[in-house]
């Protein structure tokens, strides 16, 4: 069953303890997860077809999550991006990013890791069902 899932995740967040926690959660559950606490290093890890879902922090030193999404989507437009951020501005940024094509937007602290897992699942299913539905 684990092999079947095999969803490939890249998590970039400059809070190292946060991404470390994500790795500790997802790895034993059969996900292939790479974590990176430096934005530029994280971006360099990416190449088209290597990951299914990208988890991004919004505010990072060096480069913003939005910036990373823009760059990744040039190379692979169908990639599913989920933002996990502690930044809050009454939903304005969330709205903007979702409009721009982000798959999800979650606020820290997460209300549950299961919720995130469910969202990642849906993102992955979404790709399988038909990448054409997202333009």
């Amino acid at each position: 069953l684990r092999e079947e899932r095999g969803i490939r995740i890249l998590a970039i967040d400059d809070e190292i303890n946060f991404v470390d926690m994500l790795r500790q959660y997802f790895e034993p559950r059969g996900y292939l997860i790479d974590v990176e606490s430096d934005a530029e290093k994280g971006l360099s890890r990416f190449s088209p077809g290597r990951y299914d879902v990208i988890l991004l922090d919004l505010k990072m030193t060096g480069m913003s999550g939005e910036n990373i999404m823009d760059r990744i989507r040039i190379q692979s437009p169908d990639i599913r991006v989920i933002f996990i951020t502690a930044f809050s501005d009454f939903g304005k940024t969330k709205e903007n990013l979702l409009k721009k094509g982000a798959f999800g937007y979650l606020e820290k602290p997460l209300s549950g890791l299961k919720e995130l897992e469910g969202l990642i699942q849906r993102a992955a299913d979404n790709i399988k069902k038909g990448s054409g539905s997202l333009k």
Partner: protein
Amino acid sequence: MNYYAIPPLVTCTIIAAIGLIVYHNNKRSRVNLIFALFCFSMVWWLAFYTLMYMSRDPFQALTWARIGFIGIIFIPVLAYHFITAFLDIRNRFVTVFIYVVSIPTLIVSQSFHVYQGLKDEFWGFYPIAGNYYFVFLIAFSLFFGSGVYLLWRAMSAPGILDIRKKQISYVFTAFGIGAFGVVDYIGKYKSVDIYPFGYVCALLFIAIIAYAIVRHRLMDIELIIKKTIVFAGLFLVSFAVVAFFVFIGTAIFEDVLNNRWMSLMPSVIVIVLIFRPVESFLRSTTDRFLFQKKYDYKDILKTFTGEVLTVLDLDDLGKLTVMKLVNIMKLDGASIILHDEKSGAYKYLVSEWPEKAAMGAIPDLQPLHLLLSSSGYYLKGSGPVPEQPGKHTPAAINMLAELRGELIIILRYSGKALGFILLGKKKSDEEFYQDDLDILLPLAHTLSIAITNAMLFDKLSETQAQAAQQEKMAVIGTLSAGINHEICNPLGIIRGQCEMFTLNMKDGLYKDKTPSELVVKALEIMNKVIKETDRATGITKKLSAFAKPAKGSIEDDVELLKELEEVISLIEHDCHLNDIVIVKDIPKDLPCISADRKQTQEILFNIIKNAAQAVKTKGTIIISATHRRGRVLIDIEDTGPGIEKEYLDRIFDPFFTTKAPGEGTGLGLFIVKQIIEKNNGFISVESKKGKGTVFHLAFMASDERAHGGG
């Protein structure tokens, strides 16, 4: 012609004028009516005595004297009646009694019992007292005396208002002097040879009353004197003109026209021609000499201008102007109506009328537009102001009627109509004269400038307030977003780590781990939780320190060198480990800084710590200070990597940081800047990539030069 007849005649005229005006001023007032009747009794007496003096026939003269006595009978009666009415003593019985008592005297007045005959004196015929005459003298003394007594009693009553006391004291004095008129009565005894100067007393009496009217608002009429003088002057001029033409006319035309009355025609024409100029002359002369204080309009204008231009609040400006106008010119009311350019509406800036009616809706816009499209003023009726062509358009006249105004003055500044001043009737019932407009027009011009200023100021402060509000909102926005970010990140880690451990346990993912391995795992997570909790707490601490109000105005004399040494001792160890050298270049005679001592330490600590963090390893921090123009200037320079140009502008923004999460909150320099500004200081930064950074600080130097001890 008997010239001794002239003084009583003039007195008679003046008293008649005063009596008429007092009565006319308030027909419903009992006091005014009785005063007028009192004047009338004196007029009666003086008129018939004048005729008596002028008579050449003794029989005729005696008849005039006896008719004149009817007036004399009522002088004491009406004096007493006036005093009781004036003092508001209501005793109908006494009033009726004094009138009834006078009836017998009235009955016998035309007989020899009162005036038995005439004596021929140098001033003309004069009556001789009859056997009944002493009865009248007793009545006179009683009535007049008790009247004066009532006045004296009222005047010395405790708790009387100041102004009322003054009024009564004038009436008291007037009647006191008037009492000397009794001389006339004594002169009527055969044996006494004394010139009857009673009319002088009457004149003095009237003069005092008139003075009290002007100065102390006696009977609520202020302009009586002015009107009286104008009236008397006009009367005398007319009289002189008529007399002159009658004299000339009789001489020239009598033979030709054979008609005396025809000769009056030229005098009528002359009177008509000179009436207005004479009136105007008399009015301005009386204004100048009698009402100087009230009408020294240049002074009024000067004071007003000075005051009005300093008021920058539009409402205050309006209130001040209207209040001054109403008080100075004694108006029924006044308003200022402004035209709002944006909405095109007219609205009252301020309105001061006794009845609210004038505050009602502002009528049709059309006439108002017509008004505003011109300049100058609009005056109701055809007053003595020289008419200006096109000024009295029907629309304007209707407007005035509807707004209940007497005069409208347009407020206009640099070609722009602002609105207008609306003035009500003068309380004195006078019309507006050129003199008034000479005050009002420049005043309106000054007011226009002041209103423009106030409006600009309003706009400016509104913009400033908006900017300040926006800035405040921006700071709050940044702060709340920053707080959220800085607290939610630790919380995210805390929750995630705990949840991850719990779920991994529950899902059996730790099945193959030994208990001791699990304990290690749990401890690892707990340490992270503690670290992140401290991180979040640190932020709230910093924020509350930032929000802490300033200590107040108590400022210390801070010795820079001493504080610097204390601060450096805290970070020296760290610096030493990282091979950072701190150099101090502080002159010995540097004055103290006027600032809070603790806060100065905080400032220095933060900047030096930042510098050390920037240098990281192997470098120098140089702290130098100079003293210039009452300020102490401090430079804190480091040999670090410098700050990127794009960050330089944001370096003092809250939550701006280039440091990794957990290492810096981005509040340090923001708080430093706030504290420096709270201490009347100034901070700026200068940096070159690869060369290092300098923070420039400036503080107020305290007066004391205390650095000798070091």
